[in-house]
């Protein structure tokens, strides 16, 4: 064993370390929360790290998990030790191959960070629904409950699968274990080598497919033999459990850590026993220890090997004294009479009794319970509640724990204040921060310092809210002398240290609820020292006084600025933590932080290192203790987050989620079919923009460009007659609108939503007008938000009351005209300066009131549909986009389904009108027959007709009239949009996109091309350009970007457009309108700058222009209708490359990183990219210049 090296890592890293060492090929597809395993493997292989055989594992990213499973299967069959990592939907996509891999008795491990399956909603969080969905594939299943176990089981499963020939799914809880930072003991290479039997590897290779000893597999079998062949594997499953136990024993000999297939923890004479697996077992272990101290007779069994399920071994562990058993499942099987683990145990108990080899003559009291779905907390209080329930005569079964089920009344009540004795032995710290402020990385660093420099055990778990940027982060840190099994969040009243790194969070959370009596409260506040106390809302002041907290404060942003750190406060807050928490003695702590800074930045960031040192030194003098008065001085009022004017659902449900009190919502208050209302983001005022644009109404030329480019719909324009203005607020601005398109007397106003604007400044950037006396002054100028907030909120609210301009009167072909329409996509949680959202917003302006959206998983489904709010909203008539995210791979097909359904119902409506034509007004029926809905006026007329139809139907009887009422709305044209990123369109969903293009149906496909998998953290897609650095292309992508437009144009019946809103806004507008009008499949590929490009998105527009000028991106429209007029369908809308490619590339870190790390390779790749850009343009140009003869002319000339 020698010297045990300890590491501070999370579950993903622990598993990946072993997987990388013990495999030769790793084929993956990223999915939260398992992506880091693949990324780390790729990093290590790129850095030349070898496996135990001295070779560098080959890591490849596939186009989907289905593809990854296929590649894994193939690689195994051809004799390479192969593995993959996945979760949730990804695991489901692997199922077909898993049957095959198991059916062929192939040694392999799939490591799964277990995650919920998408049912009524998607969830990235952890439970066992995914692994339970594969239990019938024939794979073995091994569960880990902690980071240490995950590392250990990764090795045990790899060794065991080679011996048993049965593939194994090794799983651990998504986020709770996969992302928990903990101190673990590393496994030395010598141990890994000792565990993997070389003879097993030789045998594995001997069975591989090889022309040197050819066999066939994957035959097609018939009724005569399939059944027998299927049964032939039984001996392997019989032998497996023993072999796994032997493997665990061997591991114990080498490391001292002994695992068993099932581990019992508790009293020898326990009367109540709980069976469970995963991280919940750790919390249960801790709870049992505590309850034993209190004299309770309880125990748990941790289930490790779930498949094959060796019932007998399990039952033997149950103490004779046991009278009641609860089996916990972290999944739900609707319609079943019990969840999987419960049923397995029940069957085992019953069979044992039937066989007569059980200690029980009759079945004991048994209950099946569900817990922890989608990382719902599973705490000691809940575990105790289960034990208590088991004491009753007939324990509830099935039961749920952790929720309030007021519909089916399945839940058990629990005591939220129950604490285990372990809690008293650990120091618990909670930190509130905001997304990018470095709080999380500071805490990770802190854990590393403490874990590596002391003998303390350490644990870190990080909770993020649902926004993509500016999310609130809450870090839960624990330190203690003994092993920390607390697989749950720090509870109220338990934290010895509470820090608030952003003073704006003070009135959002009851954060001092978390504080234990006598705890330390650290606040980063920009208020003057004397004013800090008053800046606390009264509820927090109350807690400080009552709990006798020690209150420290610091103006961290000031210290940062003084030290030259800009807005980086992580090191400063970290220093404060060490100074006041007492975990490490002061000087020693400071020294450790400094050396950690050196280690992070290395010699490359000398200036940064020095600045950090200065900041650390300045921190100690800048932090001060706040004098706590006897009474609260309650000056601040807790703000009501959601106003009373909001709809009931928003006030009752959405508000709870926004407040962070969603856990308290009972089952009855949640939509049962996954349906949530739209128009909710408008109620959430985030106030994250330090500056907002101010309109100079005298300078403005009303061009309409600013509402066009705003990613958040935070600046809008409206045109209205002057006589609708009744008592406008004093500061509300409006002027007569310029131009002849509007009738006399019309006014225009450009208004900002001050509490929703993110302050990106893109609107100011696009504004073309400068004051001739002050060139820095434009028609829009950024000014500090705080002083303007109140006034502009009033103005915004007033602006909203002004009537919308009649859609049929809007001049849609002009920017000014189109931009006065209402955006029905407002205030999303997308990144500041996002390049995707302006396109979606535009579509909702043009078609929103009749738009149905199929949205692929990705950034657009997260900012579009991640609760608590959605930015999609409704117009004053209550119409607006209806939206759903089905899956990732099926998005195009999902949208096609919409079109099929809409057409079917429209046809049905038309048929019913025919049937009922005698009873309906003649001109109404004619009107429907001749309806022309090619413009807004036509659509408006059709809506009028439908109104009249409804009026007439009201007085009609008969089922046809009722049926027609049900489908009448489908007579109004609907716009089907299939939206997603390049990850979907180019990779996992391409098969569907292809088929939908070929179908010829009328749908609009919008590809938001960020050229990388943005949502999951920058993995390469086939849209990633040559020379760009991305995950799985760390050395710069070698292959060219896939040309999706060319593929689409090859069909010749697809409308195809490439657009870039920041470079040519009119072309974008045109393309969207043409796509919609085209009565067939339309594909718009939209260039979307993204933070993954490594550029400040304040430069969003400039980047688009550079992309265009360098030939990196081209603009064109391919309209098949043009051929009917004898014209070439392809129109190039951009000019040939006019600047060197490298002039564009050097402005983005995704390219410049390569220049700096591999200058020769970057020169080569950029040289090629430059050539490609020219050639590509020339190619498009040639295509656009082909002369198309008129079909009739061709035929005529032939005849002649």
């Amino acid at each position, binding site marked *: 064993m020698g010297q045990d090296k300890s590491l501070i890592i999370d579950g993903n890293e622990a598993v990946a370390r072993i997987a990388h060492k013990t495999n030769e090929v790793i084929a993956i597809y990223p999915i939260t929360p398992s992506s880091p395993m693949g990324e780390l493997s790729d990093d290590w292989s790129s850095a030349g790290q070898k496996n135990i055989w001295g070779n560098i594992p080959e890591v490849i990213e596939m186009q989907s998990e289905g593809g990854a499973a296929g590649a894994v299967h193939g690689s195994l069959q051809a004799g390479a030790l192969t593995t993959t990592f996945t979760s949730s939907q990804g695991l489901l996509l692997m199922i077909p191959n898993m049957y095959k891999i198991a059916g062929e008795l192939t040694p392999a491990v799939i490591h799964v960070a277990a995650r919920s399956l998408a049912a009524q909603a998607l969830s990235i969080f952890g439970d066992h629904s995914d692994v339970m969905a594969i239990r019938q594939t024939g794979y073995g299943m091994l569960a880990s409950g902690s980071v240490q176990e995950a590392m250990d089981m990764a090795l045990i499963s790899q060794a065991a699968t080679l011996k048993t020939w049965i593939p194994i799914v090794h799983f651990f809880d998504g986020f709770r274990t996969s992302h928990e930072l903990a101190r673990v003991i590393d496994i030395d290479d010598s141990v890994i080598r000792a565990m993997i039997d070389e003879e097993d590897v030789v045998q594995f290779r001997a069975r591989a497919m090889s022309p040197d000893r050819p066999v066939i597999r994957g035959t097609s079998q018939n009724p005569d033999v399939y059944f027998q062949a299927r049964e032939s594997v039984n001996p392997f499953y019989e032998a497996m459990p023993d072999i796994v136990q032997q493997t665990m024993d061997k591991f114990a000999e080498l490391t001292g850590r002994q695992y068993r297939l099932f581990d019992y923890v508790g009293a020898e004479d326990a009367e109540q026993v709980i069976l469970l697996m995963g991280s919940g077992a750790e919390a249960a272990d801790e709870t049992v220890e505590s309850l034993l101290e209190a004299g309770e007779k309880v125990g748990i069994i941790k289930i490790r090997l779930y498949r094959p399920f060796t019932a007998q071994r399990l039952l033997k562990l149950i103490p004779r004294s046991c009278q009641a058993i609860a089996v916990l499942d972290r999944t739900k099987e609707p319609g079943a009479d019990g969840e999987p683990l419960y049923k397995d145990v029940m069957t085992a108990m019953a069979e044992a009794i039937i066989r007569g080899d059980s200690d029980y003559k009759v079945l004991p009291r048994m209950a099946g319970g569900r817990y922890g779905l989608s990382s719902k907390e599973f705490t000691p209080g809940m575990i105790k509640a289960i034990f208590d329930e088991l004491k009753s005569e007939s324990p509830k079964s099935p039961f749920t724990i952790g929720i309030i089920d007021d519909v089916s009344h399945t839940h058990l009540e629990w005591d939220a204040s129950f604490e285990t004795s372990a809690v008293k032995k650990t120091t618990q710290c909670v930190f509130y921060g905001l997304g990018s402020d*470095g709080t*999380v990385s500071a805490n990770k660093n802190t854990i590393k310092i403490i874990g590596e420099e002391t003998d303390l055990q350490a644990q870190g778990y990080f909770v993020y809210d649902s926004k993509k940027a500016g999310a609130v982060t809450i870090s839960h840190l624990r330190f203690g002398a003994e092993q920390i099994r607390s697989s749950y969040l720090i509870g109220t009243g338990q934290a010895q240290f509470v820090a608030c790194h952003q003073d704006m969070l003070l009135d959002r959370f009851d954060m001092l609820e978390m504080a234990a009596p006598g705890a330390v409260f650290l606040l980063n506040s920009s208020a003057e020292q004397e004013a800090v106390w008053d800046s606390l809302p009264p509820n927090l002041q109350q807690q400080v006084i009552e709990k006798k907290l020690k209150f420290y404060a610091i103006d961290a942003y000031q210290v940062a600025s003084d030290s030259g750190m800009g807005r980086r406060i992580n090191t400063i807050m970290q220093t404060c933590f060490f100074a006041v928490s007492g975990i490490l003695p002061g000087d020693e702590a400071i020294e450790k932080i400094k050396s950690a800074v050196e280690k992070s930045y290395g010699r490359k*960031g000398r*200036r940064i290192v020095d600045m950090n040192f200065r900041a650390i030194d300045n921190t100690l003098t800048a932090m001060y203790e706040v004098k706590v008065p006897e009474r609260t001085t309650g000056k601040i009022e807790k703000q009501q987050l959601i106003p009373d004017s909001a709809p009931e659902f928003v006030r009752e449900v959405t508000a709870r989620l926004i407040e962070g009190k969603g856990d308290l919502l009972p089952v009855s208050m949640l939509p049962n079919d996954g349906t949530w209302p739209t128009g909710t983001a408008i109620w959430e005022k985030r106030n994250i923009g330090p500056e907002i644009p101010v309109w100079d109404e005298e300078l403005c030329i009303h061009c309409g460009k600013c509402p066009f480019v705003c990613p958040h719909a935070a600046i809008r324009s409206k045109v209205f007659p002057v006589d609708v203005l009744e008592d406008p607020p004093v500061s509300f601005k409006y002027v007569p609108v310029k131009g002849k398109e509007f009738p006399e007397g019309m006014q225009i106003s450009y208004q900002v939503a001050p509490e929703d604007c993110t302050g990106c400044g893109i609107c100011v950037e696009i504004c073309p007008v400068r004051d001739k006396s002050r060139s820095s002054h434009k028609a829009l100028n950024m000014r500090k938000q705080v002083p303007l907030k109140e006034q502009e909120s009033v103005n915004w609210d007033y602006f909203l009351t002004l009537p919308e301009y009649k859609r049929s009167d809007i001049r849609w072909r002009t920017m000014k005209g189109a931009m006065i329409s209402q955006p029905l996509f407002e205030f999303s949680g997308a990144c500041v300066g996002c390049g995707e959202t302006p396109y979606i917003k535009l579509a909702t302006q043009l078609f929103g009131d009749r738009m149905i959206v199929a949205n692929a998983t990705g950034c657009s489904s997260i900012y579009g549909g991640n609760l608590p709010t959605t930015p999609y909203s409704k117009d004053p008539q209550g119409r607006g986009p209806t939206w759903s995210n089905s899956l990732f791979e099926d998005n195009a097909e999902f949208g096609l389904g919409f079109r099929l359904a809409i057409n079917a119902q429209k046809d049905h409506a038309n048929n019913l009108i025919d049937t009922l034509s005698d009873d309906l007004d003649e001109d109404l029926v004619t009107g429907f027959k001749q309806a022309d809905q090619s413009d807004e006026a036509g659509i408006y007329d059709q809506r009028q007709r439908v109104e009249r139809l409804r009026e007439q139907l009201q007085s009609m009887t008969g089922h046809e009239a009722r049926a027609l009422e049900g489908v009448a709305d489908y007579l109004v044209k609907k716009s089907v949009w299939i939206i997603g990123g390049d990850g979907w369109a180019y990779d996992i969903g391409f098969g569907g996109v292809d088929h939908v293009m070929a179908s010829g149906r009328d749908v609009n496909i919008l590809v938001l091309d960020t050229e990388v998998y943005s949502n999951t*953290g920058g993995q390469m897609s086939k849209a990633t350009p040559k020379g760009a650095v*991305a995950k799985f292309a760390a050395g710069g992508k070698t292959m060219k970007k896939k040309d999706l437009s060319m593929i689409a144009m090859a069909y010749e019946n697809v409308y195809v457009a490439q657009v870039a809103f920041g470079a040519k806004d009119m072309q974008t507008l045109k393309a969207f309108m043409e796509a919609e009008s085209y009565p067939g499949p339309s594909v718009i590929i939209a260039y979307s700058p993204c933070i993954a490009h490594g550029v400040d998105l304040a430069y969003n527009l400039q980047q688009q222009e550079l992309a265009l000028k360098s030939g990196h991106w081209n603009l064109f429209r391919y309209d098949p209708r043009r051929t009917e007029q004898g014209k070439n369908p392809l129109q190039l809308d951009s000019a040939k490359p006019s600047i060197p490619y490298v002039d564009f590339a050097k402005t983005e870190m995704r390219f410049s990183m390569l220049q700096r790390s591999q200058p020769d390779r970057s020169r080569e790749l950029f040289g090629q990219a430059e050539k490609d850009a020219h050639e590509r343009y020339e190619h498009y140009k040639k295509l656009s210049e082909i002369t198309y003869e008129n079909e009739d002319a061709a035929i005529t000339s032939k005849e002649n």
Partner: protein
Amino acid sequence: MDMSTEYLGLKLKNPLVPSASPLSKNLDTAKKLEDAGASALVMYSLFEEEVREEDDLMDNYLYSQDIGHNEAHGYLPVSDNYQTKTDEYLAQIFSLKHALDIPVIASLNGVTVGGWVDHALEIQQAGADALELNVYYIAAEPDKSGREVESLYVDLLVEMRKHINIPLVMKLSPYFSSVAYMVRELQKHGVDGVSLFNRFYQPGIDLETLNIIPELSLSSSQESLLAMRWVGLLYGNVDISLAATGGIHTAEDALRMLMSGANVCHLCSALLKNGPGYLAKILAEMESWMEEHEYESVSQLIGSASKLNAVEPAAFERCNYLQVLRSYQV
């Protein structure tokens, strides 16, 4: 002809030294300069702003990638091989030292004292023979007095001198109330030489976009008169090396500069315009003129027409002004 001269304690074979320019970014052109006869080489500058900007970029996009999204704690893989601008610069010093026989003078261009000492130490360690400090400071703040501006220069020098033992030369702008006083002060605090004068590039305005735009133009011989006057005034009043820079395009310009008292003449625009080989032409013409006029060595020439030794010393000062005005025919 003995063309040798001494500069910053270095013995150089002739007084022609290319100054900081992109020519030294490339080993081939650097070699061409040496082949054409350059007696030393001043490298392209390492700019403080570039280093800072890069630090910020790296911090934003490499070290602090977490923007607060649960599914992605980073967006770009971080490479261990990332070569910063500083790394690149030091590597270039190393390469130039290996490829060339002539002394290599590194150049730092910046504003604050801050981390500059570290860079200077690294440069010294990389083997540079001397270090030119290009303190490119625009005194734009109305509440900073001339004295305060001057102490910026002095403070920087003092700090540098504490840590650096290779020769230090400061490239100055002409915008001091008293150039002579400034140079004396720098001498007092240990500078080994001064290079006169830096050309401050003046920005232009784009009439269409109303943006302030960079406008770069090469120098002309006309500009060399400024340095020539001051070199002439300083020669004999200070003990440190004097380098003349800005507008030296011909052998005549160079000879005049030496006569005023310069130890070396820097060439930049002339070489950018005409190529590295042009240096050989100037050198040859200088030698040939000196032979014709029966000079024995450059050291004999240096300072011969400075204020100290000039036929009409007062011409270096105000009198020259009236004379010039009178000589101009409308």
